[in-house]
């Protein structure tokens, strides 16, 4: 150490600040930290210390992890041997996590780099110094956890009080002064979606209906000139939307819901009805994708670029596997390619056989491994499967096309001798239903028409009205059941107050 011309020690100054607060000042905390470090380095000039010109500044980065650009840059430079000493204002600038600190010390030790905290005098080369450091860091970590706990508790308490604590603003609301305020136009959209779901009772039909009405997800503008949302609804977001108790005027936290400060958009009756329908539609036979045995997961696409996902149906205990275009799974049949659903064993076996032949694959290779090893992507059209192979296939262009045909189901058709009118399903249904109801009333299954109406979830008025179809003249009934009725006849044409006399009925209905 007693050398006259000490070796120069290159000192890297690292500065960090957690929040953006105050960063806009001309002389901010980062500058202050840097200045302190620089003056310390100057004081050590006799030992050959020299500050590096590079800035290692992390403005508005948490000390809870190492995901900080400047720190990463510093570590890289350390690895490259460009740094001898790391200078920080205080230890907690470097990290607030004990585990991360251990990692950093290891990285420093590996390059025998010392580091200095200018306001906290200690020496990491001694055991005592290390102990002090660990104690200090334990406290730093404790402080950080404490403050995050404080924030968590505050959020929980605000939610319980019904306050909205930020986050993505749901469709139907706007955030004003940190409160949710109803956006009338969007709220109407929300009501339409809830109402239509109750009416249609199916995600598939609902999606089609929303598309027809041009209803899309909420468009959210972000700080950067960009926006999210404003796209057609798919099943997942719809389910989330329909379950969101925000629309009942509640706020949630940790799975519990509390009366909120904002106004509800949907009435409880509709909401409950929707939940009932959603619960009834839950598919209980969910099988994990990885258990499905589908070899082409993530690799098969239809000819319009939709991924085809594995699915299955069961009959008599046998499982029939398929690949289904994601367009269908999202309720948009028209966006699907020319083959929207394909038998899994069919397509898999075709590929395996063709690949075995073309690539001259050893018989010892298992069928199941062939697709995994050689197929990167397969695109299915009605005539061929286009395959992008992996480098393992060792063919010059990585493209293959394999002829393929959709297996036609056995078809049945009727060649009519001449045009034959078929019964009108709606009319027949109405007559049959009226008879079924009448029988229920005659058997005293229900004591009142109201009870019957409740059992079929219809309005009593409608039930009374439709019961009258049971008293249509036999000639009319017969014609409807066989499809011989006048072509203009429809349910709407049958008068609400049907005459008692058959002759009059026939006359009014055009028989």
């Amino acid at each position, binding site marked *: 150490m007693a050398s006259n011309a000490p070796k120069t020690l290159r000192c890297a100054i690292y500065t960090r600040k957690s929040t953006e607060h105050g960063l806009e000042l001309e002389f901010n905390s980062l500058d202050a930290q840097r200045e302190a470090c620089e003056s310390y380095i100057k004081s050590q000039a006799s030992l050959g210390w020299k500050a590096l010109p590079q800035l290692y500044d992390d403005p508005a980065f948490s000390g809870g992890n190492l995901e900080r650009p400047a720190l990463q840059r510093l570590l890289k430079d350390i690895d490259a041997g460009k740094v001898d000493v790391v200078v920080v204002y205080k230890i907690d600038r470097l990290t607030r996590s004990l585990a991360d600190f251990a990692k950093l010390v290891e990285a420093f030790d590996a390059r025998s780099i010392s580091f200095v905290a200018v306001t906290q005098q200690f020496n990491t080369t001694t055991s005592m110094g290390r102990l002090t450091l660990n104690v200090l860091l334990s406290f730093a970590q404790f402080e950080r956890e404490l403050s995050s706990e404080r924030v968590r508790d505050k959020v929980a308490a605000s939610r319980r009080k019904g306050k909205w604590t930020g986050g993505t603003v749901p469709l139907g609301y706007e955030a004003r002064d940190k409160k949710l305020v109803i956006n009338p136009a969007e709220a109407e959209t929300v009501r339409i979606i809830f109402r239509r779901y109750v009416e249609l009772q199916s995600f598939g039909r609902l999606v089609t209906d929303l598309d027809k009405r041009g209803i899309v997800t909420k468009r959210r503008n972000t700080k950067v000139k960009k926006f999210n949302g404003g796209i057609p609804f798919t099943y997942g977001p719809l389910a989330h939307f329909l379950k969101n108790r925000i629309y009942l005027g509640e706020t949630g936290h940790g799975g519990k819901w509390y009366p909120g400060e904002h106004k509800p958009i949907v009435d409880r009756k509709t909401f409950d009805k929707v939940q009932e329908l959603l619960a009834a539609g839950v598919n*209980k*036979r969910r099988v994990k994708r990885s258990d499905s045995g589908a070899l082409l997961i993530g690799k098969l696409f239809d000819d319009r670029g939709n991924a085809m996902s594995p699915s299955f149906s069961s*009959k*008599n205990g046998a499982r029939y596997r398929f690949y289904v275009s994601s367009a269908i799974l999202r309720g948009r049949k028209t966006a699907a390619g020319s083959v929207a659903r394909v038998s899994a064993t069919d397509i898999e076996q075709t590929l395996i056989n063709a690949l075995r032949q073309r690539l001259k694959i050893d018989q010892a290779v298992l069928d199941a491994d062939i697709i995994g090893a050689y197929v990167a992507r397969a695109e299915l059209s009605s005539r061929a499967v286009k395959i992008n192979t992996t480098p393992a296939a060792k063919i010059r262009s990585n493209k293959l096309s394999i002829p393929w045909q959709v297996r*036609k189901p*056995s*078809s*049945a*058709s*009727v*060649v*009519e*001798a*001449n045009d*034959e009118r*078929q*019964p009108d*399903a709606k009319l*027949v*249904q109405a*007559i*049959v*239903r009226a*008879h*079924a109801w009448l*029988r229920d*009333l*005659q058997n*005293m299954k*229900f*004591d*009142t*028409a109201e*009870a*019957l109406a409740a059992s*079929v979830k219809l309005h009593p008025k409608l039930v*009374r009205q439709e*019961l*009258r179809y049971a*008293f249509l*003249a*036999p*000639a*009319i*009934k*017969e*014609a409807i*059941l*066989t*499809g*011989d009725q006048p072509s203009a006849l429809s349910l709407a044409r049958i008068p609400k107050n049907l005459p*008692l*006399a*058959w*002759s009059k009925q*026939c006359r009014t209905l055009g*028989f």
Partner: protein
Amino acid sequence: MTQAPSSMKPADPAVEAELDRLATAPIVELRKRYREVLRTDPPKAFGPDLLRRSIAHRIQEKAYGGLSGPTKRLLDQLVKAMAAKPNGRLELPRRIKPGSELVRTWKGKTYRVVVRPDGFAYEGKTYAGLSEIASLIAGSNWNGPRFFGLRSKPEKAEDHGK
């Protein structure tokens, strides 16, 4: 299957007069008349309108005749199907006129059956039912109308407890 709607008998003045009377009769009288005409107590749920319609329907049936046998059977069958599955789609019987041809592809081969007034012609022979032919083609027992696509969709087996 059935021909034109059953022809109406000429109007019976006595019946028409009774219908007119029914239109204004009070409920007490309607209940009494119901017992007389239908030979059972009126159902509890029946109000004047249903009583009136039931009576009118019954007396007209007596005077002019009701549904023909096959239609009545068909209706009963449909009512039963609806009672079993209140929200299911009704399976309407398809009508095929004689002279029509049923074409069915089975395992790559096409089979043709011609509908005759007295049955179904297949390979020079006439069969009484389609099931016989279907079973002959498939080599196992098949429901004929289903095999030849006369039922819109095979009924789904009810999954119990799934």
